[in-house]
């Protein structure tokens, strides 16, 4: 397991008048090399949960195990620098993350902090820029002069430059245009499938993540209301509605098809193309069973 939480609670401003429970008694496990989506209505504790993953927040109750580091409530935490390199966290607002005069310096900030040489750091920065589809001429620019979309990509690049094993992103596609969004999702998919990294994404746009996600965690009022594979979620998406989330279109379409043909235990088709092909194969099954049989024999 890349990340394991055991009965974790998190309370903001514990022991004060303004105390607020953000997470309540959460058990979850995220396997290594998987893509995990986290959904939940606003204020359900998503961002708090992410900050537990690299030790920015320490649990007020329970145990958080990330890679080989264990954070236990009430115990002094070990040095977290090594963990932070291995778990890259991209925050929700890129402007709160960039601060250097140039994009290049900003991208080198992480790698340099983790003890890389300047040459190496610059090399990493370049690679991350290319991965994010950003023009290398932007490296000399002031990050605050970038457009909203470029800035977000640069913020993600600054985390990828650290070469983390686990990449955690808080609504990474929020201010991106549709093309960049699709590019980012496919980049994240490559990072996972080709390089074996674990990808955790908080999203309000479940539709774009559903086709590639292995698992989902749905939060409701600081509790894990659902935890399981995309297939399990597709078999009963009504849990989302109970958590205050509209059921994504792709799940609706899949449900409509699956219910119409009384399918059970089928792998959900969550892209238009896959669904179309699936329907085509179903209808050919029904109307021309002989042709299908003959095709199979050849």
């Amino acid at each position: 397991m890349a990340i394991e939480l055991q009965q974790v609670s998190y309370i903001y401003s514990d022991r004060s008048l303004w105390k607020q429970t953000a997470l309540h008694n959460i058990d979850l496990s995220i396997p290594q090399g998987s893509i995990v989506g986290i959904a939940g209505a606003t204020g359900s504790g998503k961002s708090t949960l992410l900050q537990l993953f690299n030790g920015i927040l320490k649990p007020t109750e329970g145990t958080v195990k990330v890679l080989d580091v264990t954070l236990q409530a009430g115990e002094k935490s070990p040095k977290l620098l090594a963990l932070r390199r291995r778990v890259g966290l991209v925050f929700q607002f890129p402007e709160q993350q960039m601060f250097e005069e140039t994009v290049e310096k900003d991208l080198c900030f992480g790698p340099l902090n983790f003890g890389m040489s300047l040459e190496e750091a610059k090399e990493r920065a370049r690679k991350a820029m290319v991965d994010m589809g950003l023009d290398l001429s932007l490296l000399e620019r002031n990050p605050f002069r970038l457009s909203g979309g470029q800035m977000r990509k640069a913020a993600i690049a600054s985390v990828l430059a650290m070469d983390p094993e686990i990449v955690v992103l808080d609504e990474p596609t929020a201010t991106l245009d549709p093309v960049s969004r699709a590019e980012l999702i496919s980049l994240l998919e490559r990072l996972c499938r080709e390089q074996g990294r674990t990808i955790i994404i908080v999203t309000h746009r479940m539709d774009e993540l559903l086709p590639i996600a292995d698992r989902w965690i749905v939060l409701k009022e600081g509790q894990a209301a659902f935890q399981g594979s995309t297939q399990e979620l597709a078999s009963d998406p009504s849990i989302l509605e109970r958590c205050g989330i509209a059921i994504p279109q792709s799940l609706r379409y899949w449900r409509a098809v699956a219910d119409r043909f009384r399918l059970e235990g089928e792998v959900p088709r969550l892209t238009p193309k896959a669904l179309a092909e699936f329907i085509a194969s179903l209808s050919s099954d029904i109307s021309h069973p002989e042709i299908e049989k003959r095709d199979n024999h050849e």
Partner: protein
Amino acid sequence: MSSEKLLLGRTIETGSWVHKLDARGKIIGMLLYVAVILLSHSWPAMALLAVFSISVMASTRIPLKYFVKAAKPLRYLMLFIFIVQVLSIKEGEVWLTLGSLSLHQDGLRLGAFSVIRMLFLVSFTALLTFTTTPGKLNQGLEGILSPLKKIGMSPDRLTLMIGIALRFIPTILDESQIIMKAQASRGADLAELPLKEKARMLVSLLVPVISSAFRRAQDLVYSMEARGFRMDAPRTRYHRLRWGLADTVFICMFVVMGLAVAIL
């Protein structure tokens, strides 16, 4: 973290009678309280001051520990004042001699008075911000300053500045917290760095905090202009200030206290 420790400007709503008072009355009351403190010169006066202050604080139904917390940041200053007083005043009976240093009775007494005064001054005046929302406080201040209009000054301008500043302290603190977290995530955790590195990191914290404060100010100006805000324009208030009997009683309390401690 720091925003939890920071009590400045935080209102604690309990609905007590002090909460319901007119903000102008509370501001005047606090000014009178400062005078009462300055007039207390003897142990009986101090005792009376303590009984009075603690009972008013208790009547707000806010736990007393919050008042103590408000004075806590000044504990080293209080200690410093105490030591200076004790060492510099060389009157009265000598209690203890250590080489060239000697401990005099008056020094001890005046040192203790200074500390008690400081303690009550800070913790009692915290009552004002604990029981009054920043908006009402500001309105009260504007009410008190309104005579200044006659000599051509604009209390509106002043209170608008104070109001905006107070309003954005927690916002900017919260934002710095997020920026610190983002930087800790990239390997620059203030808590784990050596001192020299810490200083360097503060610069990288200040740049985004200040730039976002400017951005926020710009947005605020646009949104105020978009809603037709004009300086010094006559406007109707959502909350009206209303002076009641309780406010007069509140003020009188301090006047009576002042007289009492002056006599004692």
